[in-house]
Structures are given as structure tokens and as C-alpha cells.
């Protein structure tokens, strides 16, 4: 919290060169702020969903009018042809180099189930469904000046792509929100996300992104909000051992115990593990391998069951930044433009056992 206060002070971009005197924020006022609660008789504003009493034909008419623009792929009819950047029509054909950063995807974590490797080993996989992603906008590097700049390497030389997923009925959205999608040729979307990309990986608004953006066997980073556990104690939040349940221990079994040293260290160090809100924080899991891809339902199987967030939660998938697991050969750059083949057989990584093959046997060596 204190860091963000300083950031805001630094972030004040005053016109002209006049220097900004940095005022040191000393006290942690935000910790001792009184928790105000309304008196019991206070009438809270009731949130009512106004039913505007449309007749059924009118309701169908409004949905039908709006329907032209939503539903997958939510692309306005007249804008579709010239928007989708087909492979050959790409003007500046850019070859991929290892340093380039590609666009990411928005996915839903729809569940987990086990797969088996060819050597009989059982692995846990998480299913991520990429629900009709479309590029909404591309902001070149010089125009991209976010209020809170994300912690990304050499941000100055990188543009930003706005991606939207899961198109919705525009009748349910506010005018301002649907305004974002007006010039992108894409119907309004439920979720939006920004991906910092290098300028060569620019994408025209309206290009659909699907699961073939990542190849099978590649490594991805998955970012999401962890499951919200609410206010938790130290035993659950930090894995403290707590104290014994008997042998004369009075009134402290799951408490934190000692929180600091003596003498000049007789204070509470910043970062001391204490009870507090657990979960609902952004976390990123790096280097998960993609074991299998299903193009019909746009689903990818990702290694492990540690993808942050509950089932049905939203996650963002990026190419991995781990040096050893980065893409060696060229991925579909800037994204996969071919036609999504609708056959329902999946693309498996060669190490994974496809259920269509026979049982696994071992040869006597």
C-alpha cells in the first residue's frame, strides 16, 4: 500500500519540467483507519433489476438485433472479410526471433483430470478452455502509457494488444463499455485483458485467437487470481505448526506465538507472517507444459493441478519466460491464422498415451 502511494506521487506527470518534491509517507495510516459501519436502522440502497416490461416480440426483436453481433465468432458481418489478417495478405511478413514476445490468450479453467504417459506414469492435467478470443485493439508502444505500468521487461519498446473473450448480449451492457468494441468490428465481450507484445507481433483488431496459438509440447505461464479463502489464521495461511492441544497449553493452539526478537530487533519486521486475507491474489505459475490440444472445443490440457483460481475461473496464458523452456523453434507467429479443423480428434504430445492406442506394455530388456 505504501509503495503505491509513492508510485502515485512519482506518477504525477506535471506538464513542463518543474521538479516534484518527494514527500516521505511515514505512518501507516491505512492500518489504523477506523472500520465504519452503518447503524442497524440504515436503509441500504436495494439493487433492483428493472424489468422494462417489453412485450415478447419486442424482446425477441432487441435480442435478434443485438444477436447479429454476439455469439461466436462475434464479428460484424460487413467488417469480417478485410479484418481477418490471412497469412498471405499479411503485409509485413515478420519472421520470428527468440526475443520477440507474442500475444497471450484468455481462458477458463474448466476442470482437471488425469492423463497417462507412455511409460505408464500418471500425470495431473488442468483443462483450459479458450472461449472465442478476439483482438479488440492494438496500441503501439509510443501511445501506450498506462497509469500503473506492468512489471514487464523493456516496456518502452513494447506495444499492447487488448484481447476480449466470451461475447455477450449488448443489451445487458452499458453504452460506454460497448463503445470500446465499436471500431474493432467485434461484438462486445465479457472479459478484457491487455497483453504486452513486441511491435512485430502486432495483430489487427478482429483477428480470432484460438488454441493453436500454442503448439503441443510448448511451455506456458498461467496467471490467475487464487481461490479466495477469506480471513484465515497463520496455521492455514502460512502453514505454521500451531501449539499442542494439551499438556498444559492454555488458550493458544493455532496462534502465531512469538512475532519478533528482543533488543534493537524489538519491533515487528515488515513482512511478518500474520493472520489476514488469504487468496484472491494474482499469481502466475510458470513453465507448464501443454500435453494435448482439442481444437473442436478449443481446450488445452496443461500440466499439473496448480493453476490458480477455482474451476470456472478466468486465467491468462502467456508464452513462458523461463530461459530453458522458451520456444526454440518458431511458434505460429504472430498467431495461428489457418482454419480451425473441426475434426474432434485431438493433437497429443508424443510422450502422452493416447486412449485410442492399445494398453501400455513393457518389453523385457
Amino acid at each position, binding site marked *: 500500500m505504501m509503495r503505491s502511494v509513492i508510485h502515485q506521487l512519482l506518477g504525477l506527470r506535471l506538464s513542463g519540467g518543474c521538479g516534484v518534491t518527494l514527500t516521505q509517507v511515514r505512518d501507516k495510516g491505512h492500518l489504523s483507519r477506523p472500520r465504519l459501519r452503518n447503524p442497524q*436502522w440504515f*436503509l441500504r440502497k*436495494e439493487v433492483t433489476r428493472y424489468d*422494462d416490461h417489453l*412485450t415478447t*416480440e419486442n424482446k425477441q426483436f432487441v435480442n435478434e*438485433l443485438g444477436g447479429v453481433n454476439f455469439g461466436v465468432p462475434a464479428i460484424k458481418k460487413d467488417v469480417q472479410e478485410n479484418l481477418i489478417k490471412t497469412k498471405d495478405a499479411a503485409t509485413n511478413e515478420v519472421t520470428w526471433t527468440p526475443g520477440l514476445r507474442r500475444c497471450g490468450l484468455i481462458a477458463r479453467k474448466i476442470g482437471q483430470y488425469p492423463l497417462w504417459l507412455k511409460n505408464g506414469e500418471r500425470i495431473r492435467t488442468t483443462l483450459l478452455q479458450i472461449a472465442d478470443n478476439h483482438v479488440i485493439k492494438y496500441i503501439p508502444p509510443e501511445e501506450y502509457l498506462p497509469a500503473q505500468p506492468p512489471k514487464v521487461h523493456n516496456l518502452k519498446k513494447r506495444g499492447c494488444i487488448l484481447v476480449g473473450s466470451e461475447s455477450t448480449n449488448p443489451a445487458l451492457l452499458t453504452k460506454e463499455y460497448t463503445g470500446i468494441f465499436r471500431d474493432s468490428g467485434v461484438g462486445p465481450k465479457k472479459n478484457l485483458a491487455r497483453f504486452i507484445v513486441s511491435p512485430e507481433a502486432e495483430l489487427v483488431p478482429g483477428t480470432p485467437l484460438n488454441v493453436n496459438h500454442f503448439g503441443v509440447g510448448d511451455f506456458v505461464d498461467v496467471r490467475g487470481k487464487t481461490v479466495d479463502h477469506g480471513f484465515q489464521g497463520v496455521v492455514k495461511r502460512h502453514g505454521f505448526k500451531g501449539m499442542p492441544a494439551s499438556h498444559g497449553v492454555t488458550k493458544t493452539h493455532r496462534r502465531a506465538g512469538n512475532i519478533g526478537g528482543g533488543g534493537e530487533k524489538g519491533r515487528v519486521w515488515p513482512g511478518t507472517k500474520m493472520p489476514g486475507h488469504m487468496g484472491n491474489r494474482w499469481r502466475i505459475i510458470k513453465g507448464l507444459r501443454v500435453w494435448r490440444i482439442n481444437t473442436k472445443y478449443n481446450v488445452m490440457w496443461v500440466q499439473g493441478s496448480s493453476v490458480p483460481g477455482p474451476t470456472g475461473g478466468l486465467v491468462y496464458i502467456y508464452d513462458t519466460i523461463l530461459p530453458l523452456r522458451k520456444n526454440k523453434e518458431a511458434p505460429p507467429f504472430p498467431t495461428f491464422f489457418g482454419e480451425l479443423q473441426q475434426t474432434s480428434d485431438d493433437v497429443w504430445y508424443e510422450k502422452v498415451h493416447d486412449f485410442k492406442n492399445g494398453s501400455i506394455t513393457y518389453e523385457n530388456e
Partner: protein
Amino acid sequence: MNQADVTKLMSQLRIAVRPNKRNLKNADGPEGRLLKLRKTVTALVKHERIELFYNRADEARGYAELLISNAIRHGDRHKATMELADYWLLEKQLVHKLFRVLVPRYENYSVSYTRMYKAPRDYPGIYYRQSVLELRGNPYPSLLTDHSQNRSLLHNVLLDEARKEFRRQKLPELVI
């Protein structure tokens, strides 16, 4: 990912079911909770419209719906259903009402058997959410203003015109 219980077969409820139950803090524990809900279900079947706190109404609604759907599925010759009805309806004449009045009423319903509204919180009184729980097809006057005549509302009139205009434009395309 444990195994679903296959011994019991129930028909789908047409209401939104909360993922886990409410404990309705009760001195005698789960048995006291069920007794409290039995009284609510009995009152609901007896009076067909009751006003009470939201949590208790929502829990009782699930049980009432299941009781009626079991009564419809199995009829009154089924031993287990009779035990259920006997347990859940404290006043025994309501068991006859359940099988003679409610079952024929809801036999070929495709919607939920009960309806629940949010009543306003009384002020200045206890601030808990109030609700009205009622059986469908009850004899009382409806709680909602009827909107059958909303065709004459302004936005409906305008939308009608817009629709006709839109159809007129679309007509040549359909014809070609």
C-alpha cells in the same frame, strides 16, 4: 472427485440450488434444523403463502419442492414417500392435501412448484432479509402488477414501429 450416490434417483429441481446447505444455527443441532424446516414446510402447504426470513424460506423451499416432486413421482402407494410426507408434514391432514390437491395441481408442470419473492426489510426493525414463499396456483391475489397491457407503454409502441420498419427493410432481401 468422488462417486455420485447412485442408490437414490430424484427428478431435477427447477430452482437454483445453493451448493451447500445453510446450518440455520439451532440449539438442538441438525435435528433441530430439520424440525424448524418441517414447521416451515407444513405452514407453506397449509397456508400456501407465508412471509418469513429469506434464509429459512430458501432452505424450506428446496425441501417443499422435493417433497412435491417425490409425491408426483411415486404417488401415495410408495412406502418411502409416505414416510417422507409423514415426517415433513406435522399436521397429518396436510398429507391428504399433498396427495389429493397438490399432486393433481402440479402433475404436468414444467416450472418450479413454489415461488419466492424478496419482501422489503422492515424499518426500523430487524434488518434481516425478508421474503414471501408461496405455492404456485394458490387462491390469493397475485403479488405482482400484471403486465398484460404493457403493449401501450411508450417504449413498446416505439419498438413496435422500429420492428415493422426493420422487417420492411429486410423483406426485399428475404424475397430475393
